[in-house]
């Protein structure tokens, strides 16, 4: 369910071992592709982020966890801010690198 203003959220982190950008997936598992990220209301994101932070530290899995806003564009989910758009894809100046390279 989206927030009252319609904004959805996703949760991201860097994997501790290799720094790779990951997203919290639907079943609480971490996924590498933003397409597989869980889209949450603001309240859901707050709860999920707190739980994910505690779990990630226990498992030594991820660092720098935070939630970010997502909007819908032509039916597809898209991070609202450029920072997360670049995180989900890779450098805009090197399309051969990052997640966009594997797409």
């Amino acid at each position, binding site marked *: 369910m989206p927030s009252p203003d319609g904004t959805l959220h996703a949760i991201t982190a860097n994997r501790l071992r290799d720094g*790779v950008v990951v997203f919290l997936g639907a079943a609480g598992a971490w996924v590498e592709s933003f397409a597989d990220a869980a889209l949450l209301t603001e309240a859901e994101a707050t709860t999920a982020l707190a739980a994910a932070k505690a779990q990630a530290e226990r498992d030594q899995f991820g660092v720098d966890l935070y939630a970010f806003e997502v909007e819908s564009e032509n039916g597809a989910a898209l991070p609202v801010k450029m920072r997360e758009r670049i995180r989900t894809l890779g450098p805009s100046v090197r399309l051969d690198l990052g997640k966009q390279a594997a797409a």
Partner: protein
Amino acid sequence: MNHIAPGARAGIYHYDEIDRRFVGERVEQFRRQVERRLSGELTEEEFKPIRLMNGLYLQLHAYMLRIAVPYGVMSAVQLRKLAEIGRTYDKGYGHFTTRQNLQYNWIKLEDTPAILNALADVDMHALQTSGNCVRNVTTDQFVGAAKDEVVDGRVYAEILRQWTSLHPEFTYLPRKFKIAISGAASDRAAVRVHDVGLLARRNEAGEAGFTFYVGGGLGRSPFIGKLVREWVAEEDFVAYLEAILRVYNQYGRRDNIYKARIKILVHELGLEKFKAEVEEEFARLRGPKYRLDPAIVAEIRTHFAPPPFEDLPETSSALERAKAENPAFANWVAVNVAEHKAPGYAIATISLKPPGGIPGDASCDQMDVIADLAEQYSFGELRVSHVQNIVLAHVKQDELYALWQKLDAVNLGTANAGLIGDIIACPGLDYCALANARAIPLAQAISARFADPLRQRTIGELGIKISGCINACGHHHVAAIGILGVDKKGTEFYQITVGGDPTLTTAIGDILGPAVTEHEAVDAIEAIVEVYLANRTGESERFLDTLARVGHGPFKERIYAAD
């Protein structure tokens, strides 16, 4: 350890057993710390300051490892090792920075100890590239070669490296601390925008000494370094710096990161009070313990002895013939080659700014080529400049044409050193976790717009510098045309400044007007250039001179007329 020392190259400091043991111990210490982090014995909160002390940041896509290139000077062997590391542990390239260092952008934490081991094999490390310590000391990229050089800054930069590396008082400063040294008539090291800027000089007796500027810096609050002492004798060099750092350590603010740099302390304390505090501390320190022994200076100077130059005529007929036959080469010589102190030699700048390219990036294949060319043409030694280029400092004029041909074959023959295409750009939002906007795409678009070499020559000396946030790693404050990326409600905008100057006539640029969009920015830069060309009195009047004469009015009018 499978040690591969750089060898008896020109201008490279050779580690002794103490250096080697120290670096080896730090690598082993960090290997254990990484193991403890991965096993959960250390929390991220505990581990973060440790990894930063080893040059390891966490950025947008992965870990970033910043490698120290002491005073920007390294050997071909070392560069080849950097290329090997880039291929093995990163994605086949590296980024040369405005601090004369090299960054890898795609590092895995679990690989870092192995990388640091590989670096140690060639007397390199990532220490003092992060954290609140004295950072890697920077200097003139033409050091030891420039015709206008008075004192060789490498000697004193190396003394500072040794003095600061394990200094217990300087590991937890209020904030990072950057020192730059220039020993030439022209300042190519931007000394007055560093925490401490040093001009190495000689007195009438020919003795080396230093003019100290303190409290310069860019970032959120830009300041030009203030003259604190006109002359500090060589023997007092360490004592005086130690006095400055002690005053900073005692009075510098630790409660507010935005007010923690020494520039704020000097500003808030007032110059006279700050000088008095330093002089008082200096008087306490001065004495045998802190005296810089001439024997130590002499020993370190032996590491930087001139390479075995041949006895050559002042000019080269082979060079003149090649220039006459190849206009593109002649243009490269006119733009990228500087005078050398030794007859028959020249200093060649290898631009890492091809039109449309990413400033400061070099592929590992290019690094290998540069390493080969450094061995073939420049005694196996090269430099990283703070404007993100590479310099081969000791090339025979007779061999410049062969060098250029080989550079050109791998897209490294661009002739734009000091011209509008020679843009400084920080990694910006494409890589950096602190950035608010991208810097690289704008640099690419501007350099592509001004790709024509003749147009660049016509425009003349004009530096553009771009930062993706107010931390100003792209030095935009001291650019003739500076560009600062800002975020306005999720959209990238670019604030343009004009009139900045990184040389001894240091100036902070003025904001020209409201920020423009990414789409408008390149046209705005072109408009500024057109106004300059239309208003200058002749080709010898630089952009900064025209700006000083006509003021901001004509530039503002042209860019914002439609608003």
